[in-house]
């Protein structure tokens, strides 16, 4: 027989292992994921799951501390020159890639260039970058066409962000995600194996040089305590919960709100809230159809909706949601109530009146939603009922996610679609601010304001301008926020070092069991 020796070992192991024992070493973390990540290449992929895995492996120049402020990670220090038009970043000198090579400015420049050209969030920064070059073995210089406030936040946001890869990997890399054999980073864990359909495994990187300082958010010292992190796709949510309860997983993500109270009370399960809330967004088509440039009609739709019942139905326990109209959560530096009085009026009569004034005559309004995210679908059902009560003729179209994201790129296919947005540390990263994002919001008012917003480097002024932008969103209604949702994950109580809440993506350096 083929693979004879391997099977012999298998039989020997089978005899040695009793039926009841767990076969896993205590040194492996078993993480039940919602599915399989599309790729771990952080430059081009913005999946949260991808980042949850990959940020153990890839690092950027900066990262965020617990208060969501950028702090150096692979960078050592930086200085601005020329009124903020030149950025000089000094790199740490002790950093080693997983392939044994030292990290130099050549790697950083190559990575930033590819991210700037092909990366999903890279163009936000690089549309303002004139040149980027290595100005020393461990120093790079970016020259901007005009001052650009959010540069450090963009460099620190690893999701769809500028992970640093070796220059050799960047050679010839384009829009297509890089292959697993090129997963070479600088993080505390390195790539182990990806068995499609089975798991992604990272193993400890023994030569890791940690940044200095007390751990704070994603900043400070990082220590890999586990021998390996194993990310196992468990798409069925019920199976994730029962699997954790049965001890088959140590950590399971994205658990339904309605199970929170029972799981929170259970001594066998630890619940961990996500610090940064996600929020649903209903985009309105600004390019075609009845809603195009008809801001009065959009406001009528906005007025018809009461967000609270949808949150109750879709999420459940009040601890897990806030009917918050600010795009940034309470307590965050970007929090503002500007315009938010229109967030959740739920006034069917007023909406009817507004719609009539806007010239609405019962034309069908196509509302696309996906069932792959129950919270999208539940919310959409409630909104559809409310809109119908206000006299809107809503044509609810239910698709699977892959179809929806294809269709939303075609402006004649829809008037409203539902998606959700992860927490981002800078409003510039919110999708509605991107005029190419389906919905295509780029009115002259929006363009003028957002140009001012990105050009300013003064934090106080940027906050004030963001308030004006948010007010404009409530006035022109390119999108409707559904409220903040605090998702949560569950873990085995044997895990030590998890903390009360995760920042955005759970991390397992400084965690053990």
């Amino acid at each position, binding site marked *: 027989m083929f693979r004879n020796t391997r099977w012999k070992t298998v039989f020997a192991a089978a005899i040695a292992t009793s039926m009841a024992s767990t*076969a896993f070493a205590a040194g492996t973390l078993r993480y039940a994921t919602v599915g399989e990540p599309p790729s771990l290449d952080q430059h081009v992929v913005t999946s949260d799951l991808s980042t949850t895995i990959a940020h153990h492996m890839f690092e950027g120049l900066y990262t965020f501390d617990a208060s969501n402020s950028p702090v150096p990670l692979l960078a050592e220090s930086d200085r601005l020159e020329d009124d903020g038009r030149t950025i000089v970043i000094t790199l740490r000198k002790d950093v080693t890639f997983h392939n044994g090579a030292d990290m130099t400015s050549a790697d950083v420049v190559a990575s930033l260039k590819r991210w700037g050209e092909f990366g999903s*969030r890279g163009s936000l920064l690089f549309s303002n970058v004139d040149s980027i070059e290595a100005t020393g073995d461990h120093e790079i210089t970016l020259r901007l066409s005009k001052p650009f406030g959010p540069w450090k936040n963009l460099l620190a946001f690893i999701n769809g962000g500028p992970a640093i890869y070796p220059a050799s990997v960047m050679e010839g890399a384009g829009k297509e995600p890089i*292959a*697993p054999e090129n997963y070479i980073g600088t993080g505390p864990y390195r790539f182990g194996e990806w068995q499609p359909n*089975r798991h992604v495994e990272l193993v400890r990187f023994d030569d890791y040089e940690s940044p200095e300082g007390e751990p704070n958010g994603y900043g400070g010292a990082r220590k890999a305590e586990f021998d390996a992190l194993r990310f196992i796709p468990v798409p069925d949510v019920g199976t994730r919960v029962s699997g954790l309860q049965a001890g088959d997983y140590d950590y399971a993500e994205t658990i339904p709100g309605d199970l929170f109270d029972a799981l929170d009370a259970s001594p066998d399960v630890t619940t961990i809230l996500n610090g940064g809330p996600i929020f649903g967004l209903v985009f309105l088509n600004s390019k075609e159809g009845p809603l195009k440039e008809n801001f009065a009609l959009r406001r009528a739709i906005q007025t018809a909706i009461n967000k609270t019942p949808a949150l109750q139905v879709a999420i459940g326990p009040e601890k897990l949601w806030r009917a918050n109209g600010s795009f940034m959560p309470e307590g965050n530096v970007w929090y503002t109530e500007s315009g938010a009085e229109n967030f959740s009026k739920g006034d069917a009569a007023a909406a009817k009146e507004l719609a009539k004034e806007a010239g609405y005559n019962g034309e069908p309004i196509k509302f696309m939603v996906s069932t*792959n995210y129950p919270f999208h679908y539940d919310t959409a059902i409630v909104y559809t009922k409310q809109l119908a009560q206000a006299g809107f003729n809503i044509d609810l179209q239910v698709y699977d996610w892959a179809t929806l*994201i294809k269709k939303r*790129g075609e402006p004649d296919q829809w008037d409203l679609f539902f998606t959700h947005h992860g927490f981002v540390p800078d409003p510039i990263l919110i999708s509605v601010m991107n005029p190419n994002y389906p919905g295509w919001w780029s009115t002259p008012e929006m363009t003028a304001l957002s140009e001012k917003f990105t050009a300013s480097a003064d934090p106080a002024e940027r906050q004030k301008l963001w308030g004006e932008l948010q007010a404009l969103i409530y006035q022109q209604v390119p999108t409707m926020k559904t409220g903040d949702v605090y998702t949560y994950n569950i873990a085995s109580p044997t895990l030590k070092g998890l903390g009360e809440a995760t920042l955005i993506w759970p991390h397992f350096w400084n965690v053990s069991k």
Partner: protein
Amino acid sequence: MLGYALRRLLTLVPTLLAASLLVFLFVHLIPGDPAAVLLGDSATPEEIASLTRELGLDQPLYTQYLLWLGNVLQGDFGTSIFFRVPVTSVIADGAETSILLALMTMVWIVILGVPIGVVAASYRGTWVDQVTSGGAMLFASVPTFWLGLYLILIFSVTLGWLPSSGFPSVTDDGGLANLRYLLLPSFTLAAPNAALIIRLVRASMLDVQREDHVRTARAKGLAPWKVSVKHVFRNALIAVAAAFGFTFAALVSEAVVTETVFSLPGIGRLVVQSILRRDYPVIQGVILVIVVLYMVINLLVDLAYARLDPRVSLK
């Protein structure tokens, strides 16, 4: 016999070609786009279009089909768009789980179905017969995912006897002991299918019991179960062998739901997930492999049936 087998194999060729075209068309007509899935929510339509071009998915369908078919004939099923590894290796990995699951299900069916069928036939018309046949039919009426959910709740979460989900390879740590991960899923799959086997065993035993030598044995005063075991059992197996073949092939596809509930890395769940991701090469590859498997098993069953039962003649 050999000639018959060869002729049957030859008729498989056009069927397979037609099946491959159907698979390809079905898969590519599904709305949606793998590039959009890969890039995620914040990707703009322009970015998606540019990746679609890089992946070669903007070419005309017939070009893509011929290209794919040509490669398949050389044993190359292409590369998974999502995993960026050869489709053959993705399928091979899933096949381990699926085949072991099907085998264990067959074991359950045999150890549940055959004895119960024998007992039911031996006590034909009595309450024993009624209860066993009724019970089997009841199990066949349960939605598999519903049964699976409750089995997990009872045996994994409450009692803690068996793992709830997943399946580490038997070549992994733990070796053959890892098969315990398949105990609940295989039972879930076996429960509805055992009913068919019970009925078949019972019916074929009753047929044989009417034959002369069995009547004689009974007239000599042998207990019903002894008659069953001695004379009837072997004959009855002929019919059952055929049924097993069909069941085995069906199991691989029915496993789609079970593998989802128990989160098993088999090819059933792979198909579902690949459809959600629009990973065309994987969907095409898996379905084609299952179709071939299905045809070959059916052929083998026919041949085995002919071999076992002299009354069947091959045309």
